[in-house]
């Protein structure tokens, strides 16, 4: 069960994995995620589904090595099996013919924006995909994304490839250049927040894929609760997509940091285990 068929380090610290999960592959839709447990002692962590092959029963996940769980996951090799994988979870992204859609991906979100760009394109939208990274060597999947976008824009902080500068300026330039009907953002919470704040004055609906801490992923524990337009919602069932202009970012960032101390302790423990 849940065998790793292919594993790549797409850029330093970010990995892609093709996993055998026929039931999930059969059903999943853009914007959904799976809950993964590396081993029996592992945490349950949510990871967005970045691609799938229904016939072969495979799904692809893209993840960044941050804490001890993603680090353990990254240590697995092709042929290894995951202890648990459940999904597809969450409500799928709303895909419709909006007109011109700007899809923004950063970090692991470069991978997870892929099925969204693809679906929007198939639906007949004009898709502009903007990939954001610190430097050119941190970009990946450009070829894949080019195929599903009408226009693929690259943005690097240091200007080593594509546009140079910050995502706020890039978004503004695009919006001023042409009429954008909708914005979709995948990536770290900071990118989601900054992108939403940039589009707010323009009144363009901006959908972000939130990534709070989760355990069961089915609406049972409530750890992923977020405040949306003043109402408490569960990211795992009501989301993970929400209107970026309605998210209470402060609470979200605060809740994400709840386990920093334990995360460090866990990493230290893992390092010791690796040594001994």
């Amino acid at each position, binding site marked *: 069960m849940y065998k790793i068929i292919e594993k790549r380090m797409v850029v330093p610290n970010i990995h892609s994995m093709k996993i055998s999960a026929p039931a999930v592959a059969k059903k999943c839709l853009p914007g959904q995620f799976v809950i993964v447990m590396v081993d029996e002692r592992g*945490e349950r962590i949510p990871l967005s589904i970045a691609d799938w092959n229904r016939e072969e029963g495979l799904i692809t996940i893209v993840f960044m090595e941050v804490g001890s769980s993603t680090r353990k996951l990254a240590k697995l090799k092709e042929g290894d099996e995951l202890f648990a994988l*459940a*999904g597809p979870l969450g409500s799928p992204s709303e895909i419709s013919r909006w007109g011109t859609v700007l899809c923004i991906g950063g970090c692991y979100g470069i991978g997870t924006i892929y099925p969204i760009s693809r679906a929007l394109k198939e639906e007949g939208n004009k898709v502009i995909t903007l990939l954001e990274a610190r430097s050119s060597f941190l970009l990946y999947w450009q070829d894949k994304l080019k195929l599903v976008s009408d226009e693929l824009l690259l943005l690097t902080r240091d200007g080593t490839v594509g546009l140079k500068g910050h995502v706020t300026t890039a978004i503004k330039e695009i919006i001023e250049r042409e009429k954008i009907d909708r914005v979709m953002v995948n990536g770290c919470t900071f990118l989601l927040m900054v992108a939403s704040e940039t589009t707010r004055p323009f009144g363009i609906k901006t959908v972000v894929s939130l990534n709070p801490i989760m355990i069961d992923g089915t*609406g*049972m524990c409530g750890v992923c609760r977020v405040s949306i337009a003043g109402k408490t919602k569960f990211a795992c069932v009501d989301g993970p997509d929400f209107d970026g202009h309605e998210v209470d970012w402060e609470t979200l960032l*605060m809740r994400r940091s709840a386990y920093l101390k*334990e995360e460090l302790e*866990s990493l230290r*423990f893992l390092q010791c285990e690796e040594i001994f």
Partner: protein
Amino acid sequence: MEEKNRAELDRIKLAAQEDWRKELKKKIPTKERMKIERIKMPEREPEERNQDFFEVNLGLSEEQAMEEARRCLDCPNPQCVLGCPVLIDIPSFIKLIEIGKFREAAKKIKETNSLPAVCGRVCPQELQCEAQCTVFKATGVSVAIGNLERFASDWERKSGLVEIPSIPPPTGKKVAVIGAGPAGLTLAGEMVKMGHQVTIFEALHYPGGVLVYGIPEFRLPKAIVYEEVDYLKRMGVEIITNFIVGKTATIDDLRKDGYDAFFIGSGAGLPMFMEVEGENLNGVYSANEYLTRINLMRGYDFPRYDTPVPRAKRVAVIGGGNVAMDCVRSAKRLGADWACIIYRRSKKEMPARIEEIKHAEEEGIEFIFLTAPVRLIGDEKGWVKEIECIKMELGEPDSSGRRRPIPVKGSEFRISVDLVVNAIGQRPNPLIPLTTQGLEIGKWGEIKVDWKTMATSLPGVYAGGDIVRGGATVILAMGDARVAARAMNDYLMNQS
């Protein structure tokens, strides 16, 4: 009383007329039996047990069990049986213990209860069988039916003599069970014993439902649940974990895959929130999250297990049920210097099992009654630091028959805390209702059933346990499953 129940009761009465029972009854006069004192369940010292997660109760010895069994009068019209939602033949199994036939006693219980080691530990006996016991009515101290039930099933398990019942030839019918909690496990066991092919689909990575994610190790060791699950597997039940019905596949998908009947036992997984200011602060947990981290994910063994669980010094748990008791006693075990229960009514109204309240008190838990939280106050980093409460007084009884708490104006006060767990209740899990077309749902999100058969509004689809009752009990979930199993079997056998 239902006809089926009356028949079972008649059978139970008849069994009491067997010669050995009559002989045994004569051996000790009723008066003498009533004089025997109830055997106290051996348990670990409070100061020792509140430091770890090992079981609190140690179980009766063989001699103790036989002595306790002597207290039972073997009444001609045993009222205890009527107090039991699954109608265990209580006098028969107790008398078998009295004569040392422990294995037979265990078998007797299993005729109607497939999870006796669990029920012996978690049933609210004081409200059920033991409340009806003649000895209780006469002396105020009931026969320890629950402790004896636990003894017999533990004895059988430890002896390694657990027998797999013979399974009739396959009927060719396929049954899909959604959720591996007490309801789903019970239904699976009943249906497989009737020769049907049974598959359980469970969303989490281990089967057991609340028994593994909610109720802590110190009250119900997980090993017991896994043995019960193993027993089902040996009878031929297939269990598929990490499968969320409604997401991984819907009931309609499964129907297309060839399943003939369905049982929904998806439980009451939706946490309720207090809806007070500050509920999203760090350090504020739903009971589900807190207990899942501790039990299912084994957070108490962090960092050997990866899931962290907060260790706090001053903990407040809101609520007065078993869930609240489990949370507060867990907090103590995780190193809290001070842990309290905040409950809006008084001790008398608390829905928790009496034993849990007693154990919590012994372990140093403080109880703050007639008090409700009004808001949670955080520090500058967004962590909860205080809880503001208001005093309550009891007014007229409400629809549940318990007296309604009313806030006392101007009685607000604050308690300093660094962790708050909200254990005010759960609602039925909404996933199946949301993804199953045509399923009739009640106003609390519960699945509507015909109580005589547990049939839902969809043909061939049955439901039971917390998904139809909201947060109830293990034994009621099992009782529902037994009713559903009978009806489902009729349904399947009348199908062409």
